């Protein structure tokens, strides 16, 4: 349900930026979404489609690029994408990690004409 307020924020940002650029319509909004983020891309698209009706963003696509989950190993310092299931460093088998990527959720750019 928190996707609705997020979709509203995305729409408001896109409309403001389009207005500033003097654009007549919004073609696409590019998002970056970490795979560990609690927001759902399908749900965002659905809400965005509904609330963008009769605005300059009607028909615009919401392009979501997923950012993989990444841990930094406390043993050898290497970065790795964890397996599903048990998590350890594939380089040194250490089970001491720190999350360094995967929680992102931001608007990268807006494409207008």
């Amino acid at each position, binding site marked *: 349900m928190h996707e609705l307020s997020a979709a509203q924020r995305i729409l408001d940002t896109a409309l403001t930026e389009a207005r500033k650029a003097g654009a007549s319509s919004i073609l696409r909004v590019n*998002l970056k979404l970490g795979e560990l983020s609690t927001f759902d891309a399908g749900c965002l698209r659905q809400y965005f489609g509904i609330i963008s009706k009769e605005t300059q963003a009607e028909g615009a696509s919401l392009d979501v690029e997923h950012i993989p989950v990444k841990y930094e190993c406390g043993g050898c310092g290497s970065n790795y994408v964890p397996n599903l299931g*048990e998590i350890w460093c594939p380089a040194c088998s250490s089970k001491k*990690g720190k999350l360094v990527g*995967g929680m992102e959720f*931001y*608007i990268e750019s*807006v494409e207008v004409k």
Partner: protein
Amino acid sequence: MKIPIMRRVLDENDTAAGELRSLFREYKLFVINIMGSPGAGKTSLIEQTLTRAGGMKIGVIEGDVASSIDADRVGRMGAPVVQINTGGGCHLNADMVKLAVQVISITDLDILVIENVGNLVCPVQFDLGENAAVIAASVPEGDDKPLKYPAAFSTASVVVLNKTDLMEHMRFDADRFEERVSALNEDAPLIKLSCSTGEGMDGWMEWLERGLRSARE
């Protein structure tokens, strides 16, 4: 034409959380945000903390979908408390906490405890301006919870494992749980305790006092 934005979608919550953080710093408050499943023992942990508070003045913000059961429990112990009902919302956000701190008098407090809505998923995404994110887990939930809810455990400042008195009755491998928490978040201390027997509560109180000291520096 492509317009670069690079702006967090939750920027409004971040701004409100930043305002709260400044306010908390001004009063040298140590603020914790307790998150965990329903029934993990978040309110019990608060009750046990209040019993052992000594000279520390602790205020509580309770978040629940409905009812004032938790605020009543905490209020009976004499602590200043305010209940937020989210009416279906699955997490607290910084705006809700901004309203709550207008009701509760934070100027007299040493520690502010925010008990989030019982949920291991979305609360972790919403900054409340706290100093520390506490993940409360419990033995009956099973030792696999860190793997199933990695975001919660990976972003925690500290992990509390409650109901250790039930360990002998459950198939719970404490070493494996500890290993999994460390694999996700080696910097987060793990404090094992039982709110029923009081075992391990000293470790929790020490962690809290350390936090308060650092907030005052």
